[in-house]
Structure formats: C-alpha cells, structure tokens
C-alpha cells in the first residue's frame, strides 16, 4: 500500500520582516525615491523548515514534537495547504481535514446550530453530512438547551464544547491536529480523544498531531517525529522520541518532567512534573503581558499526614528575584496532606510582569522552622511579550518602557473649573 503522506525534500523559507509582515504602500512610495540611488538591500531570510523527508502509512497516528520554532506548525500548515512550500513536494492520498484551531469561523451573532453548519462546512463537511450528524453533534456537545441561542451568549467553555463536537465528528481519511486538543476542560477533552480514537481505529484514519502536551502524545500516537530548528531529527517510537526530546532538545521550559520523580530527602514527597500554562490549561512558554499564567506542580505524597506548603521564586533575565510566593491559602488550611497524588497551581495575574524572559523555581517546604523538602531552581522559563490588540499598561506606546514590574493602574481625572 502506498503511504498516505509522502514528503520529499520539503522546505519553507520566510523573509524576516522587522516589524510588520505586510507592506505599506506609502513606505514603498517614500522609499522608492531613496532606493533609486541605493543598492537594493536583501531582506533577511530564514528556513522554517528544511529537507524534510517523511512517509506516513495509512492508519498511522504520528505525533510531532519540538521546541517553539522547530517548524511543527509550519509543517502542518504546508500539508494542509494553508501556505506553500519553498522547495520539495508532498503527495497526500485521501481527504484531508485540518484542525489547526477549534471553532474556526465561529460567529458570535449566529446560533449554535447555525455555527455547526458554518464551522462544519469550513472544516470540509458536506451539508448532507452535517444534516446526518447534526443530532449526534448537538448531543455530544451537551449544549442542547442553548442550541438556538446566539453564540455570544455562550460561556467560553460552552463554545469550546460545541467546537470540539464538530471537530470530533469529522471523518476525513487524514486528520491534521495542532495543539487544539489541549484546550477545554479535562473531562470533555478525554471524551473527544476517546471519540477520535474510536473513529481512527475503526476507520483506519491517519493522524498527524502536534502537541506540547507529552501526556496526550503518549496516549494518542504510536510514533512520533522530533523536529529541531526546522529539520527532522528522527522518527520513531513515541516513548523513545519523548525521552530524546526531553533530554536533548527541550530548552524552552514550559514543562519539566522527571521520569522517576524528584524525591524529598525524607522520602515523603515525590515531584513528577511542573509546568506553565494559561487559563485554558494549554502548556506554553510565551505569554502576552495581560495574560494570567499558571504554575502547576504534580507530586505524590508517600504517607498520610505529611505537613508542608508550596512556593515559587520568580527571577527576571538580569537574575533579579522579582518576587516570591508562599502558599498561605491551601498550605495553612490543609497543612497535613493525606497520601496520594496532588496538583498544586498558583496564578500569576496578568498585567504584572513586563516583557522579557523569566525563570521560575518551585519548592515544597515547611515554613516554620524552614525545612526545604524540594527546591527545583530555574527549572521553568517563559517569555512575556506585548499584544497591542489588548489593553495593557503600554496602551499603544511602543518605545522603551523600563521597570521591573508593569502593573495596569487606574487613573482618575477631575476637572476643576
């Protein structure tokens, strides 16, 4: 049988535009005069993807991992024909469905039912197919009651559930998924993965799946490819690729795993994982300054009634310890922990940190007297940037804006005459 996806020498080159990706006519006109007398300056270029050769067999479920900027999303975008390659070619055998986002094209003014039709059709379903699946989609989403209400009245959770339901009912032979399964509540996520798994197993669906969430890769994909700097490092067994990735390639540290766990000196607590995530639980290492950022720890308490609390230290790129936080909320009320597995999360509010790179240390400790059980220093790091489409402390000011913190403060104005 011929491979479902055959990729040969695929490459994608981007021109680096310093500030904006598109061109303003006025710049061309005003620069035109200058350029007449000057030699043309070449734009800086870089290869987002280079020399990719890959065969994916029908029915194979392949994960794609790599650091931010490794070329994962570019690869999916080329295969789903959103952007063309610069070199090489690919042959795709079968109907392709791509899920680079859930709820693409959702419109707030349309009702849930209308959005199912719109979104389904954008994702490549025929109207007849949507008609056939409509009841199943509505049923699956669990928002029957509101199905004829405009989407703008839905909570964000409900919108996600509806979007996922449409996605879960896609039945192309080849499905490309980018990160999207990481959003939404955990239980519903599981339901969706279950549904997709069921379809993919019984229909032999081929899947390419990009994720930062190593757990869902483990569950979902038998093989995984590892990308780094736009090149394909290796394709192989998922477990093997994940450990290669974690040991050799993971430099952005939105997530830290310990296969065996980090044991406290008294063997009472074992830390397995710590990670950074947004409000939806998506693990990532880049945030805009208005976003809330969660820091979670996943650990095991080995015996009953162990007393401890949690803490973090936050450092900026000049290694200044900007602030620390000790858990005085769950730590005080429930200091004696029962045996079992826990996840502790602390939220750094939006509009607190300026742009830059920050390092995080996580700790499990007893405050009085100080007894440090686990202190993993600078294990996580993230980058803050400004999203000018949102209201941040910058407003629309884009010049140098110093300061160790960047709170969004209220101003008052009184007219005195």
């Amino acid at each position: 049988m011929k491979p479902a996806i055959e990729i040969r020498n695929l490459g994608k080159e981007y021109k680096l535009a310093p500030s904006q990706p598109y061109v303003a006519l006025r710049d061309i006109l005003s620069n035109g005069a200058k350029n007449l007398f000057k030699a043309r300056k070449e734009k800086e270029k870089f290869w987002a993807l280079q020399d990719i050769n890959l065969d994916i067999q029908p029915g194979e479920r392949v994960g794609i991992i790599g650091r931010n900027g490794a070329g994962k999303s570019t690869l999916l975008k080329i295969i789903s024909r959103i952007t063309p390659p610069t070199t090489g070619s690919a042959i795709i055998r079968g109907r392709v469905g791509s899920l680079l986002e859930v709820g693409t094209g959702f419109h707030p003014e349309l009702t849930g039912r209308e959005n199912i039709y719109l979104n389904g059709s954008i994702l490549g379903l025929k109207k007849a197919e949507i008609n056939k699946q409509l009841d199943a989609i509505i049923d699956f989403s669990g928002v029957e009651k509101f199905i004829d209400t405009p989407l703008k009245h839905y909570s964000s959770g409900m919108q996600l559930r509806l979007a996922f339901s449409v996605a879960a009912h896609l039945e192309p032979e080849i499905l490309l998924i980018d990160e999207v399964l990481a959003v939404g509540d955990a239980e519903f996520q599981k339901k969706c993965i279950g549904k997709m798994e069921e379809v993919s197993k019984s229909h032999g669906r081929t899947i390419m799946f990009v994720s930062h969430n190593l757990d869902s890769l483990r569950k979902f994909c038998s093989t995984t490819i590892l990308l780094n700097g736009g090149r394909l490092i290796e394709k192989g067994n998922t477990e093997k690729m994940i450990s290669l990735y974690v040991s050799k390639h993971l430099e952005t540290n939105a997530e830290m795993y310990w296969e065996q766990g980090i044991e406290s000196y008294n063997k009472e607590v074992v830390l397995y994982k710590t990670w950074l995530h947004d409000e939806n639980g998506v693990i990532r290492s880049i945030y805009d300054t208005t976003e809330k950022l969660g820091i979670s720890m996943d650990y095991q308490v080995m015996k009953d009634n162990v007393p401890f609390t949690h803490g973090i230290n936050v450092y900026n790129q000049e290694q200044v310890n900007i602030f620390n936080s000790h858990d005085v909320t769950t730590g005080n009320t429930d200091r004696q922990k029962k045996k079992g597995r826990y996840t502790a999360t602390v939220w750094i509010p939006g509009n607190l940190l300026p742009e830059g790179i920050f390092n995080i240390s996580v700790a499990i400790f007893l405050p009085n007297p100080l007894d440090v059980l686990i202190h993993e220093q600078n294990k996580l790091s993230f980058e803050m940037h400004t999203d000018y489409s949102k209201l941040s402390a910058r407003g629309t000011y884009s010049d140098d804006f110093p300061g160790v913190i960047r709170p969004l403060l209220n101003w008052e104005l009184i007219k005195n005459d």
Partner: protein
Amino acid sequence: MEKFITHIHPPKGVSLGLRELWQYRELFYFFTWRDIKVKYKQTYLGIIWALLQPLGMMLIFTFLFSKTWPINTGTIQYPVFVLSGLILWNLINSAVSHAGESMIQNANIINKIYFPRLIIPGSSVLVALFDFLMGFVIFIILCFFYQQNIHFSAIWFFPAGIIVTIIAAFGAGSFLAALNVKYRDFRYTIPFMLQVLFFGSQIIYPLQSIQQTWLKYVLAVNPVNTALEFFRAPLSSAKVDTAVVGIGLVSTFLLLLTGIYFFRKTEAYFADLA
C-alpha cells in the same frame, strides 16, 4: 481513497481553478449565507435601509435635475432613470468595497484552513446581489407608479445588465482584495476611486447626452456604463449603443481576467502575509 490525491509543491503557473471552486460550492453558499444572516441580524433596519438609501438619493437627484437643471432622458422618466442607475451602482459599489476588505476581515480563517480563496471575495459579491434584488423590487414598483413602459426584451436585458455588473465587481473586487492583503493602506484609496467611478458612470446623466464622441468612448471602458446601457434598453425607445457596449464588454472581461489572475498569483502567500 485513491480518488483524493493532493500534490503539494512550490507555486508555479496560474490557473483559474474553476473546477476546485465548483467542488467547494457549498462553502461558497455558507459564507454568503453567513454574511447575509449576520448583516440582517445585527440591524433589523438593515433591509429597510437597503431600500431607503437609493430611494432617498433618487429624490435628491430628481429634485436637482428635473426642476432646476433638466436632463433629457428620452422616453424614460427621470426618477425611473436615476433609480435604475442607483440600484445598479449600489450593487457594484457595495460588492467592490466589501470584496476589497473581505480577505483582511477573514484573515483568521485564511490562516487556519485551506479552501479556494476566491470564495471570499466571491461571496461578498453575492451578498451585494442579495441587497440589489430587494432594491430591484422597489424599482419595479416605481416603474408601475410612473406607468413606465417596460419592453418584453427586459427578460434578457435586465439579467444582462446585472451579469455585466457582477462580473466587473468580481474582477475588481478580487483584484483589490489581493492588493489589500499586500499593501494594507491601499484600502483608503478605494472609496475615492469609487467616487470617481460614480461620476464616470451614466447614473444621473445619460451617456448619449455627452457631446464629445471621444469622451463617450473613453467612458465606455467603464463596465457600469455598459451594464446601464443594457439595463435601460427595455425602458427606452433609443437603441443600445453597440460601440459603447462592445468596448464595455471587452473591458469587463479583461477586468475579470486580470482580477482573477492577480488574485490567484498572490493567494498562495495570503496566509504568510495576513
């Protein structure tokens, strides 16, 4: 399964891609349906507004030109003459300006999923056609009100006028849509260009009233003039000016081909730019 084979390679050559457009006709329908639905959900007055605006303009022009500064429109009464011009003008005006903005407005979808991009400016044109059809009903009512004779040849002349308008709007709209993605500030020039086009079209005056033959033939390049020549033929005893129509048809099809060619040539990179 072997039925769907997709070859992906760096862009080379330009085709019109009509077959693919046909495969995606349902999406075409859904985009148009979405825009119409959203438009009229947001403003309940939307439909009435679409009707009142050309009627209001008609009253202004009629007052101006029939009382103070009479224009000879032959056997067509001036209100009918000007309304026929205004509804076709509204069709091309709203189709071109919406199609021109459409790619930027739908950038989030373009970045996330593949479909033939021409659907987007295409559906903007269809939305404008929907508004036009309502204006058309008002126009017919007005014809009865003024007891305007409509020759039975309207059965092909009306559609011919509408089709010429749509083809021109689609050509110009997709050209501008592609240009807008590349040069983001180009959009500011569109309203001005449309304004110029308005006065270069025989909307408030008949082309035949122009004394200089050369000027008439220059203006004939404007597809709106051909469209109106067709559209008004069944209302008037005057014959269709074949020279004007000939020039207009050639320029309309050239506009369509240039528009689609330019759009198709740049569309591969829309996702990188948008």
